C-alpha cells in the first residue's frame, strides 16, 4: 500500500511534463478540491460533525489574504496564515456554540449554514470588499505575490497542499486524537461516559479543519483572481467540498482524494459539455443523483471497495 502510494505520487510529480495545459487545469482542480475535502474530513468525516458551511472558512481566508495583499502590500505567503487564523477563529466560535450548546445532526447543519450565509450577505453588502461586484486582484505574475506565469507552478502548489493535508490526516488517524474522533462519531454518549472530553476533541477537529480551509482560500484567490461573495461563501461550494468526501469515503485517509479524482473531472467535463448546450445547472443534477445513489447503495463511500479490490489483488499475486 505504501509503495503504491509512493508510486502514485511519483507519477503525479512527473505528469505535467506530458500534460496539455487544459489537463493541467483539471488536475489543479482535482488537487485543490481534494485538499478542501480532506480539511472538511477531519471534522465532518472523522468527528462526524456535519458542517455544511465550510465555504465560510474558505471565503474568509480568500478575502483576508487578497485584501492584505492589495491594500497593505502583505505577501500572500504570510497572508495565507493570517487568513487561516481568522478562519480558525470563526471555526472556534461556530464550534464553541454548536458543541457547548449540544447541537447535533440537523441543528448543527443549520448552525453552520446560518453562519456561512451571514458571511455571504455581509460580504455582498460591504462596499469596502467590492460588495456584489466582487473583489479583483490584478495579475502581476510575481511569485512573491503568490502569482505564477506558469500553470505548472499552481499544479505543484495544489499537489503539495493535497499531499500535506492527506499526510496530516494519516498521522492524526494513528494518534489517540484520531481514535477519539472515530469514537465520538460512532457513539458520543458512550465516549463521554468513559470520561473522554468530547467537547475538547470536537473543538480541536473544528479548529484544524477551519484553519486548513482558510489556507485554501489564499490559493483560490490567487489562482482565480476574482472573489464573488455568492461563489466563495455560497452553499454550493460547501456542497462541492462535502460531496467529494462522502463519495470517496468520509472518515478515511484516502476517501476525499479518491472522491475528488472521481468528481472533479466529471464536474469539469460536464460543465464544459453542458454549458456549451446552455444547460448551466446540469452538472449539479449529476451531483444530486450521485449523492442519492451513494447514500442508498454505498453509505461508506467508494474507498472501502477500492481497498478491498487492492487487497484482493495483493492476495492473488
Amino acid at each position, binding site marked *: 500500500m505504501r509503495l503504491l502510494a509512493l508510486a502514485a505520487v511519483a507519477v503525479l510529480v512527473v505528469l505535467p511534463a506530458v500534460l496539455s495545459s487544459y489537463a493541467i487545469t483539471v488536475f489543479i482542480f482535482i488537487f485543490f478540491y481534494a485538499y478542501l475535502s480532506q480539511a472538511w474530513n477531519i471534522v465532518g468525516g472523522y468527528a*462526524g460533525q*456535519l458542517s455544511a458551511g465550510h465555504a465560510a472558512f474558505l471565503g474568509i481566508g480568500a478575502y483576508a489574504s487578497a485584501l492584505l495583499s492589495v491594500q497593505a502590500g502583505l505577501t500572500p505567503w504570510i497572508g495565507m496564515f493570517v487568513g487561516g487564523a481568522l478562519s480558525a477563529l470563526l471555526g472556534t466560535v461556530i464550534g464553541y*456554540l454548536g458543541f457547548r*450548546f449540544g*447541537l*447535533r*445532526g*440537523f*441543528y448543527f*447543519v*443549520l*448552525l453552520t*449554514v*446560518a*453562519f456561512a*450565509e*451571514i458571511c455571504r*450577505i*455581509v460580504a*455582498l*453588502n460591504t462596499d469596502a470588499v467590492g460588495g456584489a461586484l466582487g473583489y479583483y486582484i490584478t495579475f502581476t505574475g510575481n511569485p512573491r505575490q503568490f502569482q505564477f506565469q506558469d500553470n505548472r507552478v499552481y499544479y505543484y502548489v495544489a499537489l503539495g497542499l493535497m499531499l500535506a493535508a492527506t499526510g496530516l490526516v494519516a498521522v492524526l488517524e494513528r494518534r489517540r486524537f484520531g481514535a477519539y474522533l472515530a469514537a465520538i462519531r460512532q457513539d458520543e454518549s458512550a465516549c463521554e461516559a468513559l470520561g473522554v472530553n468530547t467537547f475538547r476533541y470536537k473543538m480541536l477537529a473544528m479548529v484544524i479543519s477551519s484553519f486548513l480551509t482558510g489556507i485554501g482560500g489564499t490559493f483560490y484567490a490567487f489562482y482565480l483572481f476574482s472573489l464573488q461573495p455568492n461563489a466563495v461563501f455560497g*452553499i454550493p461550494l460547501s*456542497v462541492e467540498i*462535502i460531496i467529494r468526501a*462522502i463519495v470517496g469515503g468520509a472518515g478515511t485517509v484516502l476517501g476525499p482524494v479518491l472522491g475528488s479524482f472521481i468528481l472533479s473531472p466529471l464536474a469539469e467535463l460536464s460543465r464544459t459539455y453542458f454549458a456549451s448546450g446552455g*444547460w*448551466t*445547472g*446540469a452538472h*449539479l*443534477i449529476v*451531483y*444530486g*443523483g*450521485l*449523492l*442519492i445513489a*451513494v*447514500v*442508498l447503495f454505498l*453509505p461508506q463511500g467508494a474507498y472501502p471497495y477500492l481497498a478491498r479490490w487492492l487487497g484482493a489483488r495483493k492476495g492473488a499475486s
Partner: protein
Amino acid sequence: MDATLIAQSLLSGVLFGGVYSLMAVGLTLIFGVMRVVNFAHGDMMIWGMYLAWLLATRLGVDPYLGFVVCAGVLFVFGALIQRLLVDRIVDAPHEMQILLMLGVALVLENGALVAFGPDPQRVRSPLRAATVWLGPVFVDVARVVAFAVAMALTFALFLFLTRTDLGRTMRAAADNTYGALVIGTDVRRVYAAAFGIGAACVGAAGALVSPILPFQPTGGLSLAVTSFNIVIIGGLGSLSGAFLGGLLVSVAESLGAVFLSPSMKELVSFSLLIVILLLRPAGLFGKAVT
C-alpha cells in the same frame, strides 16, 4: 416612524404569514411523522410555483384555482420520494438522511434551472392588480385570497389529522412507530401519505404566492431556510407551533424590512435562527424533542 407605514407592514406581514404557516406545517408534519428533515422543501415550493406558472401561461388557469393541481402533483411526487428513497433510510443516522435530501434538493433546483432558465418569473393574475383601501391602509386582494386559501388548507389539515382514521393513525405513528406497528398499522403507507401531504402543502403554498413573489430556480434555499426558521421557532414537529411561527416570522420579516434595509432582511432571519438554535432549540411553543 409613520404609524400608517407600520400598520401597513403589519397587515401585509399577517396576510403573507398564512402562506408561511402552510409551508411550515408541511415541513413539520413530515418531520413529526418520520423524523426526517425535508431539505428539499424550498425546492419543492419552487416547483409548485413553476407548475402554477406553466398552468397559467400554457392553459390560462389562474393560480388561485391552479393551486389544487399543484398540490396534487406535489402529493404524488412527495409520496414517490418517500417510497423510493426516504423509506430505505428512515432508520439511518440523521446525517445520511440530510445528505439524501440534499441530493434531492440539488436535482430539483438544477432541474428547474435547466427546464426554466435562471431569470425570475412571476405569474400574472387579474387579482394581482386589485387593491382595496381600508381607511389609510390598502389591502392587496391577491394577498387576501392567498391568506384565506392557505388558512383554509391548514384548517382542513388539522381536521384531517384529528377527525379521520388515516389522520389519527398518522399521529399515532408519529407518537410511537413501534406501537403503531404492533397494532398492525401499515406504517409505510402512513409515511408515504404524510410525505405526500407535506409536499402538497408546500406545492399549494408555492402556487398561492406565485403572483405575489417573483421566483427563480435558485430561490429554494432561502425558502427552505425560512421554513426551518419557522418550524424551529414553533418547535420541530409541532403543528400548532408551525402555524403560529409562520405568522410570527412573516410579521417580523415585514417589520424588519421597514426598519432595516431590505437586503438586511435575510441577515435578520439567519441571526434569529442562530439565537433560537442556541437558546431555545425546542422552540417557543414545542416540547423538548429528543
